[in-house]
């Protein structure tokens, strides 16, 4: 995987891309298995940051609406 694609996968998981860039990345995720693996690897690297967040109970109406 070229470094530029690796970085792009990282920026996608990070959430910094604009709407048009995101659509292009989503197409690559569907069509390029190597790129999809790069995205999964970035997810693996960054998602532990979510451990910093304490849960917030959603309003009961949210469940009712589902």
């Amino acid at each position: 995987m070229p470094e530029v694609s690796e970085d792009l996968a990282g920026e996608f998981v990070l959430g910094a891309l604009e709407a048009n860039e995101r659509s292009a990345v989503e197409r690559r995720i569907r069509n390029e298995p190597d790129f999809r693996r790069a995205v999964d690897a970035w997810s693996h690297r960054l998602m532990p940051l979510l451990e910093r967040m304490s849960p917030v109970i959603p309003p009961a109406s949210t469940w009712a609406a589902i």
Partner: protein
Amino acid sequence: MLTQPEELLLELLRATVLGDQIASAELYRITSGKLYAIASRMLRRADTASDALQEAYVRIWTQSGDYDVDKGQPIHWMAAIVRHVCIDMLRRTASQPLPSPDLQEIEEVVPPHDIVSVDVDRCLRRLDATQSKAILMAFYFGLSHAELAQVFAVPLGTMKSTIRRAVARLKECLDPDDVNA
């Protein structure tokens, strides 16, 4: 949330694939606090956060068959879905007031671990201040390059290279054995 046995979430996801509604409801009960925290942080509005959560759970249930352990922990896969929904909503709607790049404020919202047990936290500390703040703001608030440039009052190109360098350094720090890093 992440300390819960991952096996339980895995079992609930698998039961959801088979159409078990009790399992789907249980999955919601034990994970919605975490996912709602993510959505409310990103969208910064309770009503849209609730909409995002609804959309995310519908996707989680319908896509539960796509989950496999290669995609990471079940909660991370679910979190990726809610983040995806939120970022799409953020990019569609007119800009909200942007959060400030004050590290103290960011860390009030998402305190770092006292004990640096998470690799990514350890690696973030090796970045320079702007890099790590920009990474945290993109990750927790879903800010785009352009929004980050505005928040940090720098040109867009500068912000893009800041992020790109930060991403490359994070990868280098997290995968030290990778000769290509």
